[in-house]
């Protein structure tokens, strides 16, 4: 495999995945964004501000924590958790929102738009906009607005306008469609703050860069604590930003294996899942060529997962590239297994994870048992479970 530093190529491709499949109106804007990001990337003062706010505002670095009781429970490999759940707003999403927020301000775009599914990226974006004094509009599927009422209220408290989207399946993919339509209409003054490593070039590489702070810290921390690199890194994959963030800084460490865990929902065979890499085919969605869930006629399929953050029919193009080259392995964990892992982590470690990384915990716990005690697994604990309490209460059939 080639050294990944050369990818994406100048057209935004990770070999056959990626690109820019957008209406003409957005092409000049993407050129402008690409140029502005390239310039910011070379500017040490941009990164100085990013690092300083990451530290003093977001709460970086996050700990790499040895989960001793979980490890003992599984009876095999040592399990470490990268504690992104401890960040401001409760998830890794703030890393990217901060980076792009600073870029938008630098580009003198006063109006920020974003999409959100569960609300984590919407809350992170609204937070950064409040902090930087930018106007914020968040598109959210009508169904998600109802499911995540508390996050809607949070965004409003942060002075963002939440626009419910009633088209299509009324979930995340439709919120992205609507955000793109807004962007096409208001290109002049608007910055689209996309929340994952998806979308047209340069979003996949830019979001990866802002999230790769997770993997850079992890690398230093594991070397400091164990004097060696991990055998496996495991992360959940919806669009794939937390996974790419922790994977990418290890990409040239060939002995470190990557496992991405997708949502099997009610089971891959039921069709009610969100496992684009495990069960999808190559297509074009939201401006990028990657694995997508689609029918025989090329229509994008509805998805299901207990975790709204994984409930997306596409995935970042770089993950498709990792799948194709075998650099990463992708698996799927269903709703029930994720719920079990959620409870397991609560009980063994006193950590309430978000339902998204509960998928990764589930797979890690299964694997650890069959490995020896010298081996190391790092799991990216990408978010905190507070946002999921309503769903968990329902799933467990509890009356409060």
């Amino acid at each position, binding site marked *: 495999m080639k050294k990944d530093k050369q990818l994406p190529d100048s057209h935004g491709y990770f070999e056959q995945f990626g690109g820019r*499949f957008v*209406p*003409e109106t957005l092409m000049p804007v993407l050129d402008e964004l690409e140029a502005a990001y390239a310039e910011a990337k070379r500017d040490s003062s941009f990164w100085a501000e990013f690092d300083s706010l990451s530290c003093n505002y977001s709460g970086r670095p996050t700990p790499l924590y040895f989960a001793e009781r979980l490890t003992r429970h599984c009876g095999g490999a040592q399990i470490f958790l990268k504690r992104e759940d401890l960040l401001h707003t409760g998830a890794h999403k703030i890393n990217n929102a901060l980076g792009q927020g600073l870029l938008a301000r630098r580009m003198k775009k006063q109006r920020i738009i974003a999409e959100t599914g569960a609300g984590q990226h919407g809350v992170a974006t609204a937070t950064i906009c409040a902090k930087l004094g930018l106007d914020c509009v968040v598109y959210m599927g009508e169904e998600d607005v109802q499911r995540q009422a508390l996050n809607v209220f949070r965004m409003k408290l942060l002075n963002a306008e939440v626009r419910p989207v009633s088209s*299509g399946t009324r979930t995340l993919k439709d919120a992205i469609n609507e955000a793109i339509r807004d962007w*096409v209409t*208001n290109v002049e003054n608007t910055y689209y703050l996309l929340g994952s490593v998806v979308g047209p070039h340069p979003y996949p590489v830019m979001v990866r860069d802002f999230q790769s702070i997770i993997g850079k810290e992890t690398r230093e921390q594991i070397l400091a604590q164990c004097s060696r690199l991990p055998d496996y890194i495991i992360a959940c994959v919806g669009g794939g930003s937390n996974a790419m963030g922790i994977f990418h800084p290890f990409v040239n460490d060939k002995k470190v294996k990557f496992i991405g865990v997708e949502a099997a929902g009610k089971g891959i065979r039921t069709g009610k899942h969100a496992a684009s890499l495990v069960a999808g085919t190559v297509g*074009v969605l939201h401006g990028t060529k990657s694995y997508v869930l689609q029918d025989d006629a090329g229509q994008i399929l509805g998805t299901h997962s207990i975790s709204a953050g994984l409930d997306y029919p596409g995935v970042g193009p770089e993950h498709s590239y990792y799948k194709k080259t075998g650099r990463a392995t992708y698996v799927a964990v269903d709703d029930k297994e994720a719920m079990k892992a959620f409870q397991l982590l609560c009980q063994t470690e006193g950590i309430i994870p978000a339902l998204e990384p509960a998928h990764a915990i589930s797979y890690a716990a299964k694997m650890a048992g069959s490995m020896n005690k010298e081996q190391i697994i790092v799991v990216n604990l990408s978010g905190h479970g507070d946002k999921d309490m309503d769903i968990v209460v329902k799933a467990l059939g509890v009356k409060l």
Partner: protein
Amino acid sequence: MSRIASVFARASHTALIPYITVGYPNVETTLKAVPLFASNGCDIIELGIPFSDPLADGATIQRASYEALRQGVTPKACFEVAQELRRRVEIPLVFMTYYNPVLKFGLEQFCSKCAEVGIDGLIIPDLPPEEGQELEKSTRRHGLDLIYLLSPASTEERIKLVAGKSSGFIYLVSLTGVTGARDKLPQELEGFVARVRKRTEKPLCVGFGVSTPEQARRVARVADGVIVGSRIIQLLDGDKLLENACSFVKCLREALS
């Protein structure tokens, strides 16, 4: 000369190009509407193949696509409709759809099927020329026009690029935004058309937002063709839909002559 080229070879004639979503409100209406449009002065028909995620479309065409999909209108069904229409009309038929359904069908198979049923060209709003090279090989092989789009936001460099690659005509998006009827067209429209005209001799057709005969007349003063979509879809909503749509098309034709 391709069927599309011959439309623009007529001197001092502005082409009238209606858009309809195949299967909206049903396939029967599509089969009746197209011949009626043809006999009432339309020059090219844009047939929309519905897609689940039409991100360049406003509310009207989104809803039409959604309805058509609910009725099971697939690309395959659209080919059958096109084949039937080709028996009934002579004028050029152009498919408008998004890239994913074409990619899924297979670029080569899609184009070969288009040629077989008598489709003349393709408009794919989420496929800029940078990504169109693969498809261009197949459209060329099968004698189809691949019509690219320009927008008021396009830079001089992009105008040059698109003008070089587009075949049949160039689709000028009148405004920065999505499809949909508008009260007003932007003031800069004439300037935009002139900016493109300086760079190319290819026919220029203007769409997005054109919804009244007055607007069509204004467009006709500077462009070679007028594309009207959402307003026609709206007329296909009510009672007497074919009658209403037809008399609207007639008004447009009169406005253009």
